């Protein structure tokens, strides 16, 4: 019997199979099939959400099958509050991204659609895996379709960007692989037989030195993915060269894999190292991520690059939230991952819409668009405001929680992090102002059409969610909460009861339980 979680993996795979047998000429049919299968996956994930129990903190809908018994490797998947909404955002963004690229992909439709569905499989697999081997397989396999999406359907410098993306990611993941070997070895030493079952590995008793190195190896891989300064340089290249749909998935979901990796692997597996190294990661996140990303975003002439660097800045908030190691911070980080997926996904879509019309992303090419494309300007404004954290929209919920969480442990870092919110307002509104307001300075822009029905279908769901989460985030928070509490307990208890204390200048804070 196929479980509901396996369906998330099987449906897109089935879609790939169907696509392969559709003749190349039937372009519309192929697109419809791909969107159909990804929508079906979305429906399945909605069903999963509906059946997800609020309250228990452990894994739900767990499926288990033996895979390579000699190595203790199994096909084990499950979902909890940490992965739940990341899966949902993946299944939501994939059909939207496919729909957005209806016209923009001019050749090799089949390959593109297959790659997008394969990407979905890989990402969902990463979020679902409860086995380290399985996780690594999905983590690496996901690279291949993204590599093709950037490399084949990308812009001028696509090969460079694709290769950089692969090499950077591989560098991190190969070191992570060594760490996996290490854990694998320790498991066979401590349990008698090797296993890669994550829930078993949580029970490993690791000395601090081991934790330190293993943490670094895993963290490097996730830091590259997120990306944290100084491992972020692949991101602007990848984003600028990738087609819109690729950018949406890249920013919307792929980066979250790094944050998710921290939560699922680094924190519970290496709690002592986490507590010890958290201040370093926080300072990287605040100075290298939030502030540096924002400053660089401010001076970008290219809209897509601006959004890409804004991602670096926003992902800094998420890392900050994770490593302050308290309830608010972690919940904020998780909800911010969802929010960032929605807002930045929407931003990339909007930039893509205008790029399709004018084939330029330079801010200086535009001006006064609000008069020509009022609907476009309105949606753009909502998304920009959500991205910069206006109360009432989703971005505020996440950033506020993160800052509250970080304030509890370090006023110093919080002060600097909060400037990131101001800087975000500066670069986003400044861009908005230059693109939308004023007179129509460029003749070429005067004849532009407002959003078509298809484009509205793509963007409106995101806008609705942005508002909904901003007004009433409780449904998300109450599902996240038990798992976050549980995670914090694990960090706390596995670290032999050491007080979590990330900065010397304030009183130590222990996670709250309510």
């Amino acid at each position, binding site marked *: 019997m196929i479980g509901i979680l396996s369906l998330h993996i099987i449906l897109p795979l089935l879609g790939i199979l169907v696509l392969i047998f559709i003749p190349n000429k039937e372009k519309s049919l192929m697109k419809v099939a791909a969107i159909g299968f990804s929508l079906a996956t979305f429906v399945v994930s909605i069903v999963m959400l509906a059946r997800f129990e609020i309250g228990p903190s452990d894994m739900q809908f767990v499926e288990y099958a033996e895979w390579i018994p000699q190595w203790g490797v199994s096909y084990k998947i499950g979902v909890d509050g940490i992965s739940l909404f990341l899966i949902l955002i993946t299944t939501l963004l994939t059909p939207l991204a496919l729909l957005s690229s209806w016209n923009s992909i001019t050749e090799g439709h089949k390959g593109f659609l297959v790659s997008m569905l394969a990407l979905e499989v890989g990402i969902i697999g990463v979020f679902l895996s409860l086995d380290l081997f399985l996780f690594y397989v999905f983590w690496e396999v996901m690279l291949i379709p993204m590599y093709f999406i950037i*490399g084949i359907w990308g812009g001028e410098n696509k090969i460079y960007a*694709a290769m950089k993306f*692969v090499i950077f990611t591989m560098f991190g993941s190969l070191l992570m692989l060594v760490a996996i070997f*290490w854990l694998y070895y320790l498991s066979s030493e401590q349990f008698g037989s090797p296993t890669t079952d994550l829930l078993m590995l949580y029970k490993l008793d690791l000395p601090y030195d081991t934790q330190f190195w293993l943490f670094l190896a895993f963290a490097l891989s996730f830091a590259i993915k997120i990306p944290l300064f100084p491992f972020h340089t692949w991101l602007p290249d990848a984003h600028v060269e990738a087609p819109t749909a690729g950018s949406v998935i890249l920013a919307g979901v792929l980066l979250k894999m790094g944050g998710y990796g921290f939560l699922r692997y680094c924190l519970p597996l290496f709690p002592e190292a986490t507590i010890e190294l958290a201040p370093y990661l926080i300072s990287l996140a605040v100075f290298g991520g939030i502030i540096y990303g924002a400053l660089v975003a401010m001076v970008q002439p290219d809209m897509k690059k601006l959004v890409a660097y804004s991602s670096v800045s926003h992902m800094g908030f998420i890392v900050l939230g994770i490593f302050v190691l308290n309830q608010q911070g972690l919940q904020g980080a998780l909800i911010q991952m969802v929010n960032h997926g929605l807002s930045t996904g929407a931003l990339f879509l909007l930039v893509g819409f205008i790029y399709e019309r004018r084939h330029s992303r330079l801010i200086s090419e535009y001006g006064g668009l609000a008069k020509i494309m009022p609907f476009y300007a309105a949606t753009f404004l909502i998304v920009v405001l959500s991205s910069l954290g206006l109360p009432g929209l989703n971005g505020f919920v996440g950033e506020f929680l993160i800052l509250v969480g970080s304030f509890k442990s370090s006023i110093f870092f919080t002060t600097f992090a909060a400037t990131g919110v101001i800087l975000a307002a500066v670069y986003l509104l400044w861009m908005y102002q230059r693109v939308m307001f004023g007179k129509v300075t460029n003749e070429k822009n005067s004849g532009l059409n407002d959003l078509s029905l298809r484009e509205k279908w793509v963007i409106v769901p995101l806008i609705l969610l942005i508002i909904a989460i901003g007004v009433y985030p409780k449904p998300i928070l109450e599902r996240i909460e038990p798992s976050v509490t549980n995670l914090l307990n694990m960090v706390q208890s596995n670290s032999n009861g050491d007080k979590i204390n990330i900065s010397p200048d304030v009183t130590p804070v222990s996670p709250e339980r309510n």
Partner: protein
Amino acid sequence: MIDFQLNPADFILLLPEIVLSIGAMLMLFLELFLKDKKTLHQWTAFATFLIAFILLLSQGSNTLMAFGKMVRADLFGQFSSAIVLIGGGLTVLLGKEYFVKRDWHRGEYYSLLLFASVGMLFMVRGLDLLVIFLGLELLSISLYILVGYFRERLFSNEAALKYLLLGAFASGFLLYGIAYIYGAYGTTNLYEIREIGSAESATFYWIGLSLILVGFSFKVALVPFHMWSPDVYQGAPTPVTGFMATTTKAAAFAAMMRILFYGFPAENMDWTPLFWFFSAATMTVGNIFAIQQLNLKRMLAYSSIAHAGYLMIGITVGSETSVAGMLYYLLGYLFMNIGAFAIVQHIEGKDETRLNVESYAGLAKRQPAISLAMTLFMFALAGFPLTVGFTGKFYIFAAAMNQGFIWLILIAVINSLISVYYYLRVVIYMYMKPVVEETEFSPMELPAKVALTVCVYAVLHLGILPGNFITLAEEAISALF
């Protein structure tokens, strides 16, 4: 000492070798009398490999020694012989198309392949150093000829001469080493050496085994004994290159494992630092030089050096799991590399002008299936999951980690990263560059298609569902330790 009583039942154990030898001689006659029946040649040779394979598998899992402990039929021998026979069979399937295009299709090709395989079977099943040596010589001589198969081509001659000279040196080293081992133990029989345990003269043992190792290092192209391989691989006919890079390497590694782990069990030796160096140097040199190669045959030659480095990790670690991992990797490597060479020979064309990676530009638009298969092989060689390249590496590396070889693994994964660059370059050209030359590709013939399909299937099967084969490799290795 050696009991020379001949038991008729012994011959049954040697049936695979006997069948191959008969087949090889039959091919010579076929060539003489039925010159024009090209397809018949191929099918006879293939049938010979198939019969030998079936006979081999039907021998069951008993460990038996024959001919006065000269040959040992065990699961290890069976597993490695199976690799050899599969490799031979695939090379037969790929050969005809290649040689017919060049008007060089002769029975000798198959005959030599069969003889080489007989030699390899003796290498992996021989229990006496001299039998192993004889097997190696039979293999080498057949290969010298196969490398220089295009006798009118300068490149081919150069390759053959280089291979002959260096190969003769290697054989000399090997034989010299065997002589020392005889001096140390009073026998060349591995069974008896194992019984005796420690040598009377430690010096002779060290010298002897070092020389034997030098001999084998030449054969499997370990750094610093690798210099011959890129030139030879480039000059040899492509199917032969594929055969040498995979099957021969597998047989030589298997013989090495037999000698080291069966003949001279671990208590006797601490060669680890030397092996460690071999392994690290081989993969690093192989990968770094491969980056610069735009000629695909040369690139694959260096990549094959690099893979010998990964495989050496198994020997360096020397645990049962790591050696089982090697055996498993050798099987997987066979499919991914022969598959890659099959595509190289398809693309290079009759006049061999399309060997450079530039010729693969835009191939995906013109030959989608071939490009997809090549992509799979490249990702497999680079060690991506869901291919045998990953499971094989996981097997060996995890075993190495269990024995604490963390630095070696770090070197190995950094090497894997380097290799991603040049393997993916091929993919980049196929998928991301525009077509530059509109040359016609003749369609692939059925036997080559079959071989390619087998490779694709095996790479995926061993990568996704490795379970049964892991068990087989583990059982095979237990015959050694």
